[in-house]
Every structure is written in structure tokens, then in C-alpha cells.
């Protein structure tokens, strides 16, 4: 409880926490949706926001409020899959490279360096083009996960490198702890804060990438996500026809989501860093 109390002293944490709760609530509302989000023409077209249709309706004859709820839910699902899977890769690569050292370390770090240097966006576009037919929330999440681990693996590796030199490693090895047990039991607790803060950043990156891929038409356009919603609005010329409610809904939701995720990650990692925590919480 004390942790929460300290975190809530930061206005950024309070704001981002509230916004994220609101968006999560919206995502859970989809359980009660009166419409199937993939169907067209279920409500009258091009209506302005009103009490009946809170955010108006689109030219596809869909209620924008419920579309937006599904979009937030699906974008979050993609980002959680991408984030969690790429965390698994990052932790594995970082720990193996950091603990084994030598040639394994050099090969793995060369790989992650290449990932940082090569414009990955183009490679992702190439891959997405080829698997376009079987694109759904899970495959898209996995596709993004393959490319989201490089920088974070580096961070975890450098942490393991410093842990390996500490005394408790010697003690553990000499008292017969196996490598796997040592890494999971002794090192993992140190790496956990890092894994959490990079998870949030990675989720944010995945949502942004999904939007970009949707604009290129490389995702399944029938599944409502923030990206596909925006792409439909653009391709129906919502901008020139003046249907601002259709165009602005995904844009505003996306901005809220990105800012909230970023502020949450900054606030939490400042709290986890003992140097900045002292400044914030004060000596007690």
C-alpha cells in the first residue's frame, strides 16, 4: 500500500493511471456491445454525435462508440502479445549473453546491434506483406514481438554482467546452485523492474506500428483497431466530407493512450530508480 501511496504523489502517475483505467473500462465494455463490430450497415450512416449514438456513426453504418471500444481492446491485445513475447526473447537473450559471455555474447550482441542499425520498419513491412492472408491479432502481435527485443536485451545483459561479478554469485556457484536456478532465482528479481518499464515502452511501440501497418493496408482491415479505424475514416474521405467525429475518435484515443503509457513508464521507472526516488518521496 505504501508503494501506491508514494506513486500517487506524482501527478503524472495519477493522470496516466486514470486515463488507462478509463480506456481499460472502455475495452471491457465490449462484452456488452449491442453490435457485431465486423458487420456493416447496422445503424444509419453519417450521423453526428447524439444521445442515441454517443460518438456518431460512420459511412460504413457502424456505431463509432462501440467501434472505438473494440479498437482500444484489440490494439491493447496486440500490444500485450507483442510486449510479453518480446520480453521473453529479450530476457533470454540478455541473460544468456550476459552470463555466458565470450563468443555467444558477441554473436548475440552483434545480432541485437544489427537490429538497432537496420531500418526495421522496412523489414516488418516486407514480412507483413507476405503473411497478409493470415493476419489476425495474434500473428500481428507475434510479428511485432520478433523485432521489439534488441535494445531491451542489451539493457538486461548489462545488468547481468554487473551481477555476475558480485559475491553472491560466487557463493551460489560454490554451494552447488545450477546455472538455470541461479539465473531464475537470483538474477531475475534484479531484472524485474527493468522488464516492467521496458514492457510499457514496447507496448506503446507496438500500438504505433500497428497504426502504421494499417495505413499501408497490411493488417486485417475487418478487425477494428485504432489503426484500421483511422484508415477506414481516411479512405472514406472523412476529412473532406467533414465527419470529424469519425476521424478524431481514433486520433484522440491514440494520443491519450500513448501519453498515458509513456507517463506511467516514466513515473514508475523514476520510482524504481533509488536515486530519483529519494528526491521524490523525500527522506522519511
Amino acid at each position: 500500500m505504501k508503494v501506491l501511496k508514494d506513486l500517487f504523489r506524482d501527478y503524472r502517475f495519477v493522470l496516466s493511471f486514470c486515463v488507462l483505467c478509463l480506456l481499460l473500462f472502455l475495452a471491457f465494455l465490449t462484452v456488452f456491445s449491442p453490435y457485431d463490430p465486423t458487420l456493416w450497415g447496422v445503424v444509419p450512416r453519417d450521423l453526428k454525435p447524439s444521445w442515441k449514438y454517443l460518438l456518431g456513426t460512420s459511412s460504413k453504418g457502424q456505431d463509432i462508440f462501440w467501434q472505438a471500444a473494440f479498437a482500444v481492446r484489440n490494439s491493447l491485445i496486440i500490444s500485450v502479445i507483442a510486449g510479453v513475447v518480446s520480453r521473453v526473447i529479450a530476457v533470454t537473450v540478455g541473460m544468456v549473453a550476459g552470463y555466458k559471455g565470450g563468443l555467444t555474447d558477441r554473436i548475440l550482441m552483434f545480432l541485437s546491434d544489427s537490429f538497432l542499425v537496420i531500418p526495421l520498419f522496412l523489414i516488418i513491412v516486407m514480412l507483413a506483406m507476405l503473411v497478409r492472408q493470415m493476419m489476425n491479432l495474434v500473428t500481428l502481435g507475434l510479428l511485432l514481438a520478433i523485432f521489439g527485443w534488441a535494445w531491451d536485451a542489451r539493457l538486461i545483459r548489462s545488468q547481468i554482467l554487473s551481477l555476475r561479478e558480485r559475491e553472491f554469485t560466487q557463493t551460489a556457484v560454490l554451494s552447488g546452485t545450477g546455472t538455470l536456478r541461479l539465473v531464475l532465482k537470483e538474477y531475475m528479481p534484479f531484472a524485474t523492474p527493468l522488464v516492467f518499464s521496458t514492457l510499457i515502452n514496447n507496448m506503446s511501440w507496438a500500438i504505433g506500428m500497428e497504426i502504421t501497418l494499417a495505413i499501408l493496408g497490411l493488417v486485417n482491415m475487418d478487425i477494428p483497431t485504432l489503426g484500421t479505424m483511422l484508415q477506414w475514416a481516411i479512405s472514406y474521405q472523412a476529412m473532406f466530407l467533414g465527419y470529424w467525429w469519425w476521424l478524431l475518435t481514433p486520433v484522440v484515443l491514440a494520443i491519450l493512450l500513448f501519453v498515458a503509457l509513456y507517463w506511467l513508464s516514466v513515473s514508475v521507472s523514476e520510482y524504481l530508480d533509488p536515486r530519483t526516488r529519494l528526491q521524490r518521496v523525500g527522506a522519511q
Partner: protein
Amino acid sequence: MAFIRRYLIPRLIQYVLVIFLGVTAVFLIPRLTPTDPVAQTIAQIRSQGAYLDPATVDQLIQDLTELYGLEGSTFDQYIALWKRLFRGDFGVSFFQFPTPVSVLVGRALPWTVGLLLTTTLISWVGGNIIGGLAGYFSRRRWAQALEVVAMIIRPLPYYIFSFTLLLLLSYVIRLFPIAGGAEIGRRPEFTWPYIKSVLRHAFLPALSLTILGGTLWFQTMKLIVQNVNAESFVQYAKLGGVKESIIVSKYVIRNAMLPQITALGLALGQIFSGALITEIVFSYPGLGTLLYNAVITGDYNLIMGITILSIVAITTAILVLDLLYPLFDPRVRYR
């Protein structure tokens, strides 16, 4: 000599290996996925409503196999790809048949390079100077206000930020043209009206890239300067009565600049991807828009060409930046 052996040669080997890895990935990706590019292209032509009789289909399959470099074993194809690359031959674009990919890329490249060079330079220099000042005077109100603005802009992805800017500045307030690289129908020539038109069209994409990039440099620079500021040599200079302007420019910013050069090299790949995305938003006639059209038409050869050329260009730029680094940092000046 030690410099060549210890620094230059390993760095060059790394450079060659990264390009090798990138090209190999571009080669392997279509072969690892279960879809057949030839079948996919034919299906696409069919879905556009064209009728193909069996003889034409056979001829088409043969042509496409040759075009995509799919003859012989996988290893033969791989060798053939490298041979073609060394000749600078990236094949022909399928949907703008028979224009070679290199011609299409060459046409788009000056636009992207111009946009990228100016915006990276302005955002890096500007972001560092403003960030440095904000870090040095971090208790002032304007510095704190800038920090909040940066906190809002920083997490936005390129697409969302550019699109918001487009909505605001060329749709709500009709200040700038919505799309294009110059007025439609104007011939490229070296006259003031043409240059003015190009600049006016480039302004929004450039602004969006500059603000997004600048925010990143602003934030990191502010943090670094706050740390340098606490170092004893700065405190000593203050106590010794050195003028504040000299402390800021000579003592603090100069020291804080160095990690930012390394960071620029690391961020270049992402900045480049961001520029491509921004070009798509504004239909700016560079590589990004070329890529967009290639994706829409399924022009696989063109995408491969763009990707390989981009990998080579970005890794080369980073190599040059790395080799220039000692010019700025006297501590690693090679002997």
C-alpha cells in the same frame, strides 16, 4: 597504426557483416514464409478482373520466376542476388514495367535525402541547444513548461503526430498544402517560384520531423546537462567567477554534446523509418511514398530494392559518423 588495427578494421568488418546480414534477411524472408510470390502476383492480377487463359498463365509464371530471381536452387538464387547487387541491378519494377527499380529509387531519393538531412540537422542542433539551456536553468519556469510539452509530444508515433499536424495546419487552418512535393503541373526548374513551391510543400513534413526529433534530443540533453552541472569542475568555474555564458557554452554543453553524437548514430535507423512514415502522411514524393505505392500494388521487387538500398545507406551513414567521432572528442583522438 594501432588505430587502424584496433579501431578501423573491426569497425569495417562489423559494417560489412551488418549489410551481409540485412541483405540475407531480405533474401530469406520471402522464402521462409509459406506464400508463393509468383502465385500471389497472379492472384492479384486475377482479382483485378483480368481473364488469363492457361497458356498466358504458364508464360506469366515463367516470366515472374525469372523476374523474381527464383530460378535454380536457393543457394544459386542467393549467389545470383549478390552478383546483381554488385552490378547495381535491382531488377525491374513489376507494376511500372519495365522501369528499373534503381531508376525509381533514384528519382525519389533526392527528396528524402533533402528532407532527412535538413530536419535531422536542425532538430539535433536545435534540440541540443534548447535542451542544454533548459538543463542548465532547470529551475526556471520556461524550462519546466518546455519539459511538460516534451513529455506530451515525445511518446507520439510519427504517423499520429504528423497526421494531427496535417489536420491542424492544412485542414482546420488552411495554411499549408495538404499533399505533394510541389504544385501539380509545375516543371522542375531552378527558378524562384518552383523553389518556393517546393519549400512550401516541404514545410509541414519537415516541421513534423523536426519537432518530433527535436523533442528527443531536448529531453536527453536536458538530463545530461543536469548531471554535468553537478560536476565539480563546473562548480569550481562558478566559484572562480567565470562568466555564465562561457560556463554554459564551453564547459557544460561541449561536454554534454559527446554522448549525443553517439546517440545520433544509434537513432539514425529509426529517424529514417520515421521520415518514410511522415512522407506517406503528406504524400511527399520521396522513398516513403514510393514504398507506399509499392505496397499497395504488391510490387515486391521494388520493396526489396528500397529495403536493400536503405540498409546500405543507413549503415554507411552510421559508419561515417562513427569515424568522425574522434574529431569531436579529444579523449579518443587516434594516435
